[in-house]
């Protein structure tokens, strides 16, 4: 919960002049971003604009080659200790869920708390059931991911991340691989999470979600952040030509 009397907002994630290349290809160009604790940021942009790469740099699934990334007060560098510590505090939800197919839903949720946080099984299972209840699938706990629908799998993936009690959540196109019927159940879960005060960075094209919960929308193109605004401003009065084109294409039909 946020306290209204905070004078200086705490910075959860800070990117300073971050640059990254894939071989010769310059994916991220001088990206600068500050995310305050409790803020919900939606990142959108055309495919290949570097939005996924940017959030994957925040938990070191990708390595940035220049610039500075500070997450929760810890700088990301080659120090494995720092990386481990940041990954404990940062949860991530993937486009393709990436649940562990050989483990049951409950085991998926308990694995990291038990092995990373060294929480006893009983306690981990109790926490897991709590979060599974929150994403409304406690009755599927004993099933394997392969036996669930896409929407259910993604909700399990969200619960799995939450079981680590992260302070920041990253979402990498969480609804892009879902059938249209299932998108809503996942978005509802995410909206509920946003309302609980979680710091969230979401790469998504779900504009309804952006309008409902985002504090600001970031638009990326060709490895750069070219626009950042409140959802209202961004959708109604996009400043940049590229944003206007993008919006007309995704909203135009």
């Amino acid at each position, binding site marked *: 919960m946020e306290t209204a009397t905070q004078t200086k907002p705490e910075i959860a994630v800070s990117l300073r002049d971050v640059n990254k290349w894939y071989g010769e290809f310059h994916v991220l160009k001088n990206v600068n971003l500050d995310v305050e604790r409790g803020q919900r940021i939606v990142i959108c942009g055309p495919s290949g604009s570097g939005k996924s790469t940017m959030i994957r740099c925040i938990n070191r*699934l990708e390595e940035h080659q220049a610039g500075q990334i500070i997450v929760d007060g810890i700088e990301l560098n080659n120090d494995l200790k720092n990386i481990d510590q940041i*990954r404990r505090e940062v949860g991530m939800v*993937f486009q*393709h869920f990436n649940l*562990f197919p050989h483990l049951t839903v409950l085991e998926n949720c308990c*694995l990291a708390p038990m092995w990373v946080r060294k929480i006893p099984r009983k306690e981990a299972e109790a926490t897991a059931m709590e979060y599974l209840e929150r994403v409304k699938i406690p009755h599927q706990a004993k099933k394997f991911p392969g036996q669930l629908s896409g929407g259910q799998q993604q909700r399990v993936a969200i619960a799995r991340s939450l079981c*680590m009690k992260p302070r920041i959540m990253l979402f990498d196109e969480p609804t892009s691989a879902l059938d249209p019927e299932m998108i809503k159940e996942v978005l509802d879960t995410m909206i509920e999470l946003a309302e609980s005060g979680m710091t969230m960075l979401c790469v998504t094209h779900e504009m309804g979600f952006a309008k409902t919960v985002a504090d600001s929308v970031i638009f990326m193109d060709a490895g750069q952040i070219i626009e950042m605004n409140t959802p209202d401003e961004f959708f109604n009065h996009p400043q940049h030509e590229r944003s206007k084109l993008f919006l007309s294409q995704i909203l135009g039909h």
Partner: protein
Amino acid sequence: MQAFITRETLPSLPPPSTLKGPIAWMRQNLFSSVGNSIVTVVLVLGILAALIPFINWAFIKADWIGTSRDDCTSGGACWVFVYVHLKLFMVGLYPESEVWRTILVGAILVVTMAGLMIKGVPFKKYIQIFALIAFPIIAFILLSGGAFGLPHVETNFWGGLLLTLVIAIVGIVAAFPLGILLALGRRSSMPIVKAICVVFIEVWRGVPLITVLFMSSVMLPLFLPEGMEIDKLLRALVGITLFQSAYLAEVVRSGLQAIPKGQYEAANALGLTYWQGMYKVILPQALKIVIPGIVNSFISLFKDTSLVLIIGLFDLLATIQGAFASPKWLGYAIEGYLFAALVYWVFCFGMSRYSQRVERSLKTTH
């Protein structure tokens, strides 16, 4: 355009019943047309023509029990040859008075394996620990002796099926973890680790097992300091283990490559360390995929153990060959080889069936 629109929800019906019963099955599969019927009849006659004389020779006209070749009078197979040599085939030259030790080890092995394989047996975890840690020690003390008042039996006297199983089991159990480490090493991002693993795997895979055994037995002693001697069986075991681990490494690596990148990423994103991620997330999935390949390697290792003959170790096949080469039993090679084939087949088939069961039990989709 025309379409038929259903106005009510249709009930789910059971699938149309297929023909059942042996006659229907035969009509469908064996006699579905004139051509197929002819093929069926010809094949059945052919199989019978080959099988009847064999059964006649191997079972009906065979002699089973006796003491020498003079007891083989019926003109069929002379299983007396196997009967008389059974002790030799099972444990080689292991002293008669100490054979109970090998039987005891075999019994412990069978009970332990049964405990591991049969579903519903409690304390599986403890049985596993026993099988991996206590059993090898107990088996070694019992077989080798020299402690607890048991007379020492040199490995020179170990032979027959006992030796085959010792080599195969040690080879399998020791090569498996080594193979996994090599596979992980070959996929490592650390260049030196990767290079060492690649070189190790490629060298050992590029050399025939006979060469490995020969080197371990003939050349290795030349490099050892004067007076230092390593047991011949131990040298062979090390050679076979390293050889096998290189093969296994490639099998395991193929499994690792089949795991989607997202699994590695999810494990990392959750904060699992490399080894935790491998142990809990990647390897369980990768090994499951390559069970057929792993069992294939194990089966081929089991049969390759017969190559230790060339360094003077007498495994099952070697003792059988030795027995029918003796003047008293000349001419019974067929019985000998058939017996060897049967024993090898029983073990290999057992491994194959067990692996299929493991595969089924690990299935986690519909």
